[in-house]
């Protein structure tokens, strides 16, 4: 299968160098080629499995459980200011 690796990379928000694209493109085609064998399986009327067990998603009581930990949670960020995350300018 022929795929546009640069397009998929852009959807993935990964910039590939030309060398990487030249290497990854054929590998991706091989992987997708291997996956093609799924088309042999008759899945007419088979329900998809998203969760391996037939259980309902649990709900917890609607109460506040988390204290304000803004400083601790923002500490790993590359750049913050006044409790906000700083990124390059988005709107001119």
């Amino acid at each position, binding site marked *: 299968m022929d*795929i546009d*690796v640069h397009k*998929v*990379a*852009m*959807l*993935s*928000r*990964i*910039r*590939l*160098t030309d060398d*990487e694209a030249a*290497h*990854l493109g054929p*590998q*991706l085609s*091989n*992987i*997708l080629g*291997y*996956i093609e*064998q*799924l*088309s*042999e*399986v008759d*899945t007419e009327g*088979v*329900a*998809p*499995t*998203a*969760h*391996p*067990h037939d*259980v309902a*998603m*649990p709900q*917890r009581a609607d109460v506040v459980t988390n204290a304000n*930990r803004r400083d*601790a*949670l*923002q*500490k*790993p*960020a*590359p*750049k913050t200011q006044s409790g906000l*995350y700083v*990124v*390059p*300018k*988005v709107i001119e």
Partner: protein
Amino acid sequence: MPFSSLTDLKSRLDAGQTTAVEIAQRYLDRIDAHNGELNAFVDMDHKHILDQAKASDAHRAKHEARPLEGLPIAVKDIFCTQDGPTTCCSNILKGFHAPYDAHVITRLKNAGAILVGKTNMDEFAMGSSTETSAFGSCRNPWDTERIPGGSSGGSASAVAGGLVPAALGTDTGGSIRQPAAVCGITGLKPTYGRVSRRGIIAFASSLDQAGPMTRTVRDTAMISAILCGHDSGDSTSVVDAPEIDWLAACDAVDMKGLRIGKPKEYFVDGMDAGVRASVEAALEKCVELGAEIVDISLPHTKYAVAAYYVIAPSEASANLSRYDGVRFGQRCDNPEDLLDMYTRSRDDGFGAEVKRRILTGTFALSSGYYDAYYLKAQQVRTLIRQDFLDAFEQVDIIATPTSPIPAFKIGEKTDNPITMYLSDIFTIALNLAGLPGMSQPCGFVDDLPVGLQWIAPAWREDALLSAASAYEGATDWTTKYPAAFSGNKAGGES
């Protein structure tokens, strides 16, 4: 001591024959002596470990000992820990310090365990050899030219090499069982939903599950009893999971009346003849112990790897979208604009295998391909799960080889992703079905360990532990350790 079980260490501690500090110091000496060769640990804080051990001894002096009091346990670098860095062995998380502990880390701490460093792994747990780590390859103590399996290779190598008596791993497609098998130790992947995933860096959320990697079956049970249980902070942690008596399950000494399924799809051409012979011999031993072997078929097995390599990368592509250089992790230098920041940070930060999987998943989920790939794979997943449900109408448990081959040489499979993916051919199906599985040592091929895999119905880890305990008691595989690592001043006895 380096190859003592947790159970032995616990009884020596309980009898007052040793202290947590003494035990911690002896393992730290082992780590200092051998980690250079194995590269099993990627982070280690001696002072912090000894401080925990001192606190444990102080606790024991005043209170009743907790279930894992003073016992050293290493954890894979995928578990968030407030103490020290958590990187998932990726450059994109270089320098990341988690602001909270994973739920299972809290459980270990509350049980009195001493947390010993972070172990090496494939980047974001994507791999079967621990070669994709940003910290370099980890090595197998049975032959340091060979891989320790993966992705929990550091945990397996550390336990097999006697650098720590037990460790935690995670298993998405075999990442506890396959490294346990090729390193000659015991590893358990619990039923999906048994163990909280909160604070474990997500790879594929519908498959990921944490579990213990130890020297003996009982040690596996001892840790599982602490790890398992509902966590209201993880919506996939099952609320009313059937409870089992983990330790009592290990009292089994025979297999009288046990019907063991032997699936023909797991004994195939192309697998290593020595591996096959070891597993066949193990099954004969099970017959001697009173079990009946029933030939069964799991007809959709051959599609498991293909379904997995749609589902796992799809989930990974979504989970790894959070690494964008904004809230945590590495940001590229001097980004021109937002898109440049995202794309360059991710290109710089992720390794080749992680990129391959993100691209595969993004493609499978992209407009026009979703039905043919993702939906199709989820339907095949249903059929694979149904195969197991049908089989468990006839048998109590299933036995297979864990890995089709023993540990391969470092570098041998790095050029061809598909051959690497096929090393998980016997472990992947049960993740898709959400079932519990376990690997235990059952022999050697050319001095390399072979693993026997047990698969049980959902929530029946007790069945795995009982079968494995009976087999372990009738053989001496768990007493073996790699001769090259028996030296050192602490070495010798098992």
